[in-house]
């Protein structure tokens, strides 16, 4: 037995409930002005938790590419610490570990921007959380290239010399680092927010 199709008006009402309510640019900007400082305050106080979350993808990349040189990833006071096996000869024959530090906030300040954009756009909480998760690889890129930069362009004596980071790899590291610090933290949150809140963006751009 075939079910009777629901009346057309009911279907239209259901569809309009599924789509986000129209939001003017002025409303969006006002909401953003309110949300952005709050998101930044939350981000500031969650620095440890964010560094801890970021340490997982960074540790995964480290274990794949630099397992022998960079021993592990540690989180301390919101900083990511990388113990590096130092050149024993540089320290009078004693094997020591050098500790390299990366400030993850340099790469995660896009998270509060993303959160503020999503909240201002009236996005659902699950999309907000999913988006924050999707930001992690871009943030890990920045942290990892920061670490590579410290290894390829050492300012501390004793960093291993034979990492194969001369020539072209050094150029690649320089480009990857610059991209990770100057472009990705700004760009990734906006692109991901625009992807998650497509309908809102279309409306704000007057493309619908």
């Amino acid at each position, binding site marked *: 037995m075939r079910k009777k199709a629901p009346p057309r008006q009911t279907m239209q009402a259901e569809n309009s409930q599924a789509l986000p309510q129209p939001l003017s*640019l002025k409303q969006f*900007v006002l909401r*953003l002005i309110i949300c*952005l400082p709050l998101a*930044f305050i939350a981000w*500031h106080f969650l620095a440890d938790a964010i560094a801890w979350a970021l340490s997982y993808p960074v540790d995964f990349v480290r274990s794949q590419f630099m397992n022998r040189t960079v021993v592990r990833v540690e989180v301390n006071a919101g900083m990511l610490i990388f113990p590096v096996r130092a050149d024993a000869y540089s320290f009078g024959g004693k094997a020591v570990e050098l500790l390299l530090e990366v400030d993850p*906030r*340099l790469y995660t*300040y*896009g998270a*509060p*921007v993303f959160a503020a954009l999503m909240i201002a756009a009236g996005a659902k909480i699950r999309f907000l959380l999913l988006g924050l998760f999707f930001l992690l690889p871009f943030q890990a890129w920045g942290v990892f290239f920061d670490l590579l930069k410290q290894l390829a362009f050492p300012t501390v004596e004793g960093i291993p010399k034979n990492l194969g980071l001369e020539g072209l790899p050094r150029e690649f590291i*320089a*480009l990857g680092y*610059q*991209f990770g*610090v*100057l*472009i990705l*933290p*700004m*760009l990734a*949150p*906006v*692109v991901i927010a625009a992807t998650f809140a*497509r309908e809102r963006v279309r409306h*704000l*751009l*007057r*493309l619908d």
Partner: protein
Amino acid sequence: MIRFLLTFIVLVTVLFAAELTAPVQQYFVLPWTEMLTKAAASLLQWADPTVISRGKVLATAQGTFAISVEAGCNGIEALIILIAAMLAFPSPWRHKIWGMLFGAFAVQALNLVRVISLFYIGQWSMPVFHWMHLYAWQALIMLDVLFVWILWIRAMPKKPQSLESAIADGDAKESAAAPNHAG
């Protein structure tokens, strides 16, 4: 959407790699940064005539405080993102060119505010300076880029209606206005 995103990403990467080359740094980035520093100094001198600029360094005449405008603080990366977004989005060339000129002005105007504000904040509190410099102002500049882009798309001229669609629209309007005699 996917075509726009791919074009945008390729353009950002190409423009950014070009920005890092030595000739572009020497003949465009450095002179631009120095001009920005000079403009900031000129504005600051209205309030404090002792402020000086030398190259890309902005300083107090007493030498008590100085900032150097470096990569990431000269607004060029933000401009690259804006230009790539405008080039990648399907629109008339005339509109793109106007958008890029207006966008460059909007981004650099806010960037001047950033440099000037950081100059004062740094003299007041270094921790606040670092926080504003490394995190907050970066986010604000990106949002500036986003809003310029949104306004640019909203200001885009509507496509001229084709003759067929205009006739079709006219017919539809007429039939809607006419009384229905079909019973």
